[in-house]
């Protein structure tokens, strides 16, 4: 079985995001970039499926300008067999990404597509279910455990009330939650080797897909910061202030 993993390049989760002076967008110049943490988990799961003999090929795909090749090389170093760069100079939104991935699915016919449940930049949480809809595949979002037997997939999902287990047949789309696995780090020799590996490339314009953004960004702002309040010296003072000042208990 072939597993397709979608990878997004995003700002590193430790970096504090700034916005442009004119409030037109966030300012990512010189910001440290990385693979979206949820995509790392998706890739890790694919590599583990291969190690267990369930998958025989792991294909990593990313959409964007040339810079996303850095994350594709990381994917190769972490165990992906092939890397596919869908090159686009303009950013695509979730629907655009899902349409591109649907075309890649049509060409590659994977048995399983793994994506992160959300990307930590837009926090949209959309691409996985959109891809499932466009390819008429079943979906299991927010996965915290996966088991595959033959063409039957069982996924435990993290839902608001607790956990839920669904069963479906492959091919299917799965989006990964935090507790699915703990991603490994790439080893130096693998990183060196990945530098020389080929990355396949597809021009987005040649796919015949409409990726016009469905939304325009009018402005961004930094939310009003909360002011630090007072330090209390004791539990007694805390209770007193909550009762008599804040009046919340």
């Amino acid at each position: 079985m072939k597993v397709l993993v979608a990878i997004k390049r995003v700002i590193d989760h430790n970096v504090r995001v700034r916005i442009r002076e004119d409030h037109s967008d966030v300012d990512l110049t010189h910001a440290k970039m990385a693979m979206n943490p949820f995509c790392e988990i998706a890739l890790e799961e694919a590599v583990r499926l291969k190690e267990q003999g369930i998958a025989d090929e792991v294909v990593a795909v990313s959409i964007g300008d040339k810079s996303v090749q850095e994350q594709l090389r990381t994917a190769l170093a972490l165990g992906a067999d092939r890397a596919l760069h869908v090159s686009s100079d303009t950013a695509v939104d979730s629907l655009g990404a899902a349409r591109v991935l649907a075309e890649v699915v049509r060409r590659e016919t994977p048995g399983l597509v793994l994506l992160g449940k959300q990307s930590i930049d837009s926090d949209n949480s959309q691409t996985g279910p959109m891809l499932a809809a466009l390819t008429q595949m079943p979906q299991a979002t927010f996965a915290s455990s996966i088991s595959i037997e033959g063409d039957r997939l069982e996924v435990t999902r993290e839902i608001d009330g607790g956990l839920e287990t669904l069963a479906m047949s492959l091919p299917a789309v799965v989006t990964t939650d935090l507790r699915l696995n703990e991603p490994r780090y790439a080893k130096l020799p693998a990183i060196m080797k990945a530098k020389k590996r080929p990355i396949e490339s597809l021009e987005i314009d040649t796919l015949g897909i409409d990726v016009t953004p469905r939304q325009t960004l009018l402005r961004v702002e930094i939310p009003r910061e909360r002011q630090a309040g007072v330090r209390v010296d004791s539990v007694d003072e805390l209770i007193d202030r909550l009762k008599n000042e804040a009046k919340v208990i």
Partner: protein
Amino acid sequence: MSDTRILVIAEQEKGHLSSATARVLDAASQLGGSIDVLVAGSQASEAAQQAARLTGVSGVISVEDSAFDHMLAENVSALITSLAEPYTHLLCASTTSGRNVMPRVAALLGVGQISDVIAIESADTFVRPIYAGSVLATVRSLDVKKVITIRPTAFEPVGEQSAASVSSADSTGDQGMVTFVEEQLANGERPELGGARVIISGGRGLGSAENFRLIEGVADRLGAAVGASRAAVDAGYVPNDLQVGQTGKMVAPELYIAAGISGAVQHLAGMKDSKVIVAINSDEEAPIFQVADYGLVADLFQALPELERKL
């Protein structure tokens, strides 16, 4: 805008309408126009009666079919798209169900989706947090049909009215793509995080599942819901559904108490809209103090039992 027609997709469980529905209706009413509510699943008609009494609702569509239990995305999205034609806006709460179903609906309709809206500027312009809530984006949708998820805690629950009419619609049935196997739900002895007036959360500082009882002890005194940081969930102190933050639950209670939580931006994303924040932490430099109205620098192993005793 008089030609605005809104369909709110409500969640229900065993005939009980989800409490988020009344808050999504607040967002819907800010769009202007008429509002219908869709309720689907076994015992949908009971929940439909509850929806009909919420202020602003013009009509409720009830589809009683067990195919829609557990909000299975494949089945529910087929139902919603079959009903979508007359509507300009499709709204759902940004719960795990809403975030599972609505993108599928949007893609089937060939439109984009707007996630986790916290403010309505007009019928096509919305405010939503990005980058773990460290930035707010104002976006305009260019789609003719707008598929939106609403962050319930950013809106107030609407009141009651005399019941609107309830009608039924044809079920699109089971699409035969997934089967529900089982669920493990938290037992409901304490209030739900989403609607709680008071929340007390514990982090890695608690050190073990056993020690989390200190949090529960205070929670019981206050009638509070219990939350946790990701570190506490990852370490197995508490189940996943208690995680507050960017990738967990978004909460905005009257009072949020964080004990043994450092205050990472991903945690703050889920609770910084709380009215009053209390931090209990032994490290006076912990970032959580920067957002806390009341900060107590203390060892939680002393402070929490004392708090429980004195409340």
